[in-house]
Every structure is written in structure tokens, then in C-alpha cells.
């Protein structure tokens, strides 16, 4: 019996030790991420906490140990039981969280999805990191600057069927129609399928097929770092310029050796900040998530809720963040 009591005591003390009490002043916002221990998600969590602090809300950061939708459902059920006021979620599945989030909405909980959306039925509003038009435009502007508005460029994308990349590429082509780019020629689009080796080989193939190639845009994190490596290995640093979308942690090396002077990605801290700020505003009734509502989100400035392509409503985070030699070291350890 003594041993039994000891075990009970141990279990109890562990639970006490790990417990984080959330005594709410203001509203309680629960952020559910894809999985914990993921630097990108942790950065979003820091932003969320910052926004809650400014609004006087309390903040809960949770995520399953592995990125499963079943784990997220369990967490959402727990948040409902805790009677939180809002949930910010980056979904592991577009559809499968809708029933549990509808239950949350039925319990008067505001639901904001960010980063990775849930279907409109399961949310009040989505905070979208990617303003497709800006993402396309900025990459063209960057590569044009790097090659001096003259020469052949190519695009190395992910899969041929990827919706995100294809939308961005459409906007790139749109941007290239501008007369100031008339000396730039988009010679080809190749697909590395988001596999490192295939992207690397496709890049090598580009150097052979287009000896006058001046620049490559790779709007995918895997493609961008693979192409940077290919440029370095082929001894073309400085001769073929590169930009695209990438992770600072993966790209720091290639920014330092000059293979990629600048690239873009949204800032997860800002993303978490905006999502959690929007959640706070939904709670106090400043906004309801309808199209056309305008609001100001602390240090991020003013926003308008717009219609999303999936039929729901969304807030666009804004232009992607530019990483180059001046700030890469500051960001490479963050995500």
C-alpha cells in the first residue's frame, strides 16, 4: 500500500509540476498548431503570445506531439471543456476538423484558422499568409533587379499540379508583361516535384540547355535550396542569379556564398500575431468575420477582411518578408 501511495504521489506531483495555470483576465485564446517542437510553429506561438499580451488576453499554446488531425481534435475538445473564448488553428486537414470546430462554434468559441486553412464551415475567418499576387510580383521584381532587367530566366517549381505554385507563376507571367521587363525572357518552367535530388538535377539540366541563362526563380523551399546547391556545385555563383521562397535556416549558407542574394517567405511571428489579434477582436465584437470589415491590428497596421477563394473570408497578412545578407543571421535560427 505504501508503494501505491508513493506512485500516486509521484503521478500527482508530476501533474502539478507541469501544469500551467491560465487565470483569465480578458479573453482566453487557445492556439492549436500542427505539432509541437516545430520551429515554424513555435515562432507563430511567440507572435500569438505577443498579441494576446497587448490585448490583455491570456494565451494557451498547444499542439499534438505528431502532426495528426486526431491529436488536434483531442486538443480542441479540451479547449472547449476549458471554455476558452477563441481558437487559432493551423489545420492538419482541410476537412476533418470541421465537425469539432463546429462544436466549438456552437459553444460560442471564435475560430480563426491561419497558415493552413480549415474549410469555411469550421471557421469564422482565415488569416492567409500568402497574398498570391504579391508573392508572384515580388519574386519577378527581385530577379529583375539581380540580372539588371536583361536576359533569360527560368522557373523551377514544385509539382506541375500544385495549386499554390501555379497561381504564383500565373502572377509572375502577369508581372513580366510590364514593359520594363521587355528584355527579360522566361525560357522555360521545370518541375522538381519538391524532391531535393530531382530539383537539383532539373537545375543542372537548365544550365546545360540554356547556357545564357541569367536567373532562376524557385517558388518552393525545397526547390530553392536544391537550386542554390546546384549553382554552387556548377561553379555558377554570380553568373546565374537565384530567388524564390525559402526557409532562412536552409538558405543561410547559400546567402553567405552568394548563390542566392535574396529570397522571400512570410514571417511566422507576424502570422501568429495577426491570427491571435484577429481572435481577440472577434471575441470583443469589434469584427465578426464578414467581408468588408476593417480593423487595425496593433503593430501590424490596418487590415480588411476579404473573400477567400474557398468561399469563406480571410485576412491577407501582407507582402512576404525579404531575407538577404543583412538579416539572414538574425533569422536562420528561428525557422
Amino acid at each position, binding site marked *: 500500500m505504501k508503494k501505491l501511495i508513493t506512485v*500516486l504521489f509521484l503521478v500527482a506531483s508530476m501533474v502539478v509540476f507541469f501544469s500551467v495555470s491560465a487565470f483569465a483576465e480578458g479573453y482566453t485564446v487557445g492556439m492549436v498548431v500542427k505539432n509541437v517542437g516545430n520551429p515554424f510553429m513555435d515562432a507563430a506561438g511567440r507572435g500569438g503570445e505577443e498579441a494576446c499580451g497587448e490585448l490583455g488576453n491570456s494565451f494557451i499554446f498547444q499542439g499534438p506531439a505528431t502532426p495528426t488531425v486526431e491529436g488536434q481534435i483531442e486538443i480542441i475538445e479540451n479547449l472547449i471543456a476549458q471554455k476558452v473564448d477563441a481558437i487559432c488553428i493551423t489545420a492538419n486537414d482541410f476537412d476533418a476538423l470541421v465537425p469539432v470546430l463546429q462544436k466549438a462554434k456552437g459553444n460560442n468559441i471564435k475560430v480563426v484558422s491561419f497558415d493552413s486553412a480549415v474549410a469555411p464551415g469550421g471557421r469564422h475567418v482565415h488569416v492567409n499568409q500568402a497574398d498570391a499576387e504579391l508573392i508572384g510580383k515580388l519574386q519577378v521584381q527581385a530577379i529583375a533587379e539581380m540580372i539588371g532587367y536583361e536576359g533569360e530566366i527560368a522557373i523551377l517549381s514544385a509539382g506541375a499540379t500544385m495549386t499554390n505554385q501555379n497561381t504564383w507563376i500565373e502572377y509572375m507571367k502577369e508581372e513580366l508583361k510590364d514593359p520594363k521587363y521587355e528584355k527579360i525572357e522566361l525560357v522555360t518552367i521545370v518541375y522538381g516535384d519538391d524532391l531535393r535530388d530531382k530539383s537539383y538535377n532539373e537545375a543542372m539540366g537548365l544550365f546545360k540547355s540554356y547556357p545564357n541563362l541569367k536567373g532562376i526563380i524557385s517558388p518552393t523551399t525545397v526547390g530553392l535550396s536544391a537550386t542554390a546547391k546546384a549553382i554552387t556545385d556548377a561553379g555558377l555563383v554570380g553568373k546565374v542569379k537565384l530567388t524564390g521562397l525559402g526557409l532562412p535556416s536552409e538558405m543561410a549558407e547559400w546567402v553567405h556564398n552568394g548563390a542566392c542574394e535574396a529570397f522571400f517567405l512570410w514571417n511566422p511571428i507576424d502570422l501568429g500575431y495577426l491570427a491571435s489579434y484577429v481572435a481577440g477582436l472577434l471575441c470583443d465584437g469589434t469584427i465578426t468575420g464578414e467581408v468588408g470589415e476593417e480593423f487595425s491590428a496593433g503593430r501590424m497596421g490596418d487590415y480588411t477582411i476579404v473573400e477567400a477563394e474557398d468561399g469563406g473570408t480571410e485576412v491577407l497578412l501582407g507582402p512576404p518578408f525579404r531575407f538577404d545578407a543583412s538579416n539572414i543571421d538574425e533569422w536562420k535560427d528561428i525557422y
Partner: protein
Amino acid sequence: MKYRNSLSNRKLNIVFKWEWLLVILIIGISIVNGRLSPHFWSYTGIMDSLAVFLEKGFMVLSMTLVLIIGDIDISVASIVALSSVLMAMSYKLGLPMAVAILVALATGAGCGYLNGLLISLVPGLSAIIVTLAGSSIYRGIAYILLGDQAIGGFPSWYSYLAWGYVGKTNIPFVMVVFVGCAIIYGLLLHRTAWGRKVYAMGINPVAARFSGVPIAQMKQIIFTLNGLMAGIAAIFLTSKLGSSRPNIATGYELEVIAIAVLGGVSPSGGKGGIVGVCLALILMRLLRYGMGLVNVPGQVMMVIIGIVLVGVVMLPNIFSSRGGKRRTKEIQ
């Protein structure tokens, strides 16, 4: 006659002690949870939280039988995925939802039958190998069929299965179905001659064979049942998710086996019962619920659950080390 009596008494004794231990732990955890979170003692909250992973509960019931006969089945999670995908696809092809549900049951039972067939027909082929292969085959087929797609849009009554409550009470529908299944399994295992044969196979398969227990046939039935329960789990899980995908239920097999073991079922066979695993299910759920209410991070939760699992399974060994020695002597 005398031998059998003493055997069943002792067995009863072990089971009895174990279940009391679980009850004490459940009470302990509830008290701690109630102290830590003001939200814990809420009838709706506890009911809902118990229902959160009841679909695993269905699988635990039949897994108990598999473990008691000294086998293991690690393909159940994949069977859930395949059953769910086939159900969703047949609904999408225009079959009525009720028929699609039968497809899920048939798929589950079929996969289980296949496991059982291989295990009982090919001597020397162990359950772990067959079900390991089954695990990748069944999920593989689900991926081939559906790829990276999801199928949803089921009729609205279907979501009642996982989200509905009985009448105007706060009792989730899935809980009623589970309790029904648990009673059936309890009676089957503890009150029928068939159930006694199951224990006999686990305690001493050689002796069981010589006393006329149809080993191959029994295994066939038990593995088919296990597949069928995975099919039932698929129906409720898909209802909960409102859609089907090939990657659902990933990792469920380990959780299911862990709960059964926590419930006093010995993976080496012959020990354990339905009441124990049901208590273990409640214990595990309340533990996770309590930690969730105070927002213990996911990884820490995994570690704590692992420690509790090992700790609880070790306890009886510490208590009854003398009794354990005596048993060994008797067997020798």
C-alpha cells in the same frame, strides 16, 4: 476438478486485484484533476472527453482477445484506414450510406479474416509478421485508391454517430454502442465455454490443443473479430472527422495495445479481462483529459503516459513478487 477450481480462483484473484488498483488510480487522478482545473468536474466535459477516443475502445475489446491467446495484431490501424476509405468511396459511387457502412464492416472483417487465415494456415508464421505485412498492405491499398485526396460530404445523419447524444441526455451515442459491445465481449469471454477456450489457448497452447480446442479455427475467429472491430472504429472515426483520408488512425495500434496492457492483459497470453481494459480506457482518458485541461505540452504528455504505463504494469510485480515465485514453482 480440484485443479480447475484452484486455477480459476487464482485467476479471479489476480484480475480482481488489478481492477481495484485501476479504480484507485482513477479516483486518484480525478481528485488531482479536480484540484488542478476548475473545469474538470463537469458532467458534460467528462462525458465528452470519454467519448473522444472511444473508437479506439472498440479495437481494445477485440485486441484483448488477441493478446489473451498470446498473439498480437498490429495491422488494426491500417484496417481502420482501408475500411474508412472504401466506405467513403462506395458512398461517393452512389451507394446509400447504410450500405457504405456495411462495406466498412465487411472490409474490416475481410482484412481480419485474411490475417487469421495466414496465421492459422501457415505453421510457424507468427502473428507479428503477418500483421506487420498486413499493416503496410492495407494502408498501402488505401493510399493507392485515394492518394492525397479526402472524401467527405456524407449525409448529415451520419455525423450523429460520433457527435450525437442519446435523446436529450448528455450521453454520447458512441458511448452507448461501446458499452453494448463491451457487455457482449465481457459475456463472451467470461461467461461462455468459448471464452474459457480462449484463456486455455493463452495459458498453455499445447495443453489446449490436446484437450480438443480447435486452435486454428479459434484464431481465425478472433482475428476476424479484431478486423470487424477495426471496421466499427472506422465508421465512428470517419463520422467524427466528417471525411475520409488514407492517413487516418495512424499509430492507433500501439495505443490500443498499450491500453489493453494497462488493463491487465498480458502480452504473453492467458491473463486479463474486459472489465480491466474498460477501466484502463477510462484511466488513460482521464489522465489525458486532465493534462489537456492544464495544457501540458504534447511531448511531455507522451512521456508522462509512458511512465504511468510502465509504472502501473510494474506495480503488481512489486507487490506480488512472492506470489509470482510461488506460481513459477507450481508450474515447474
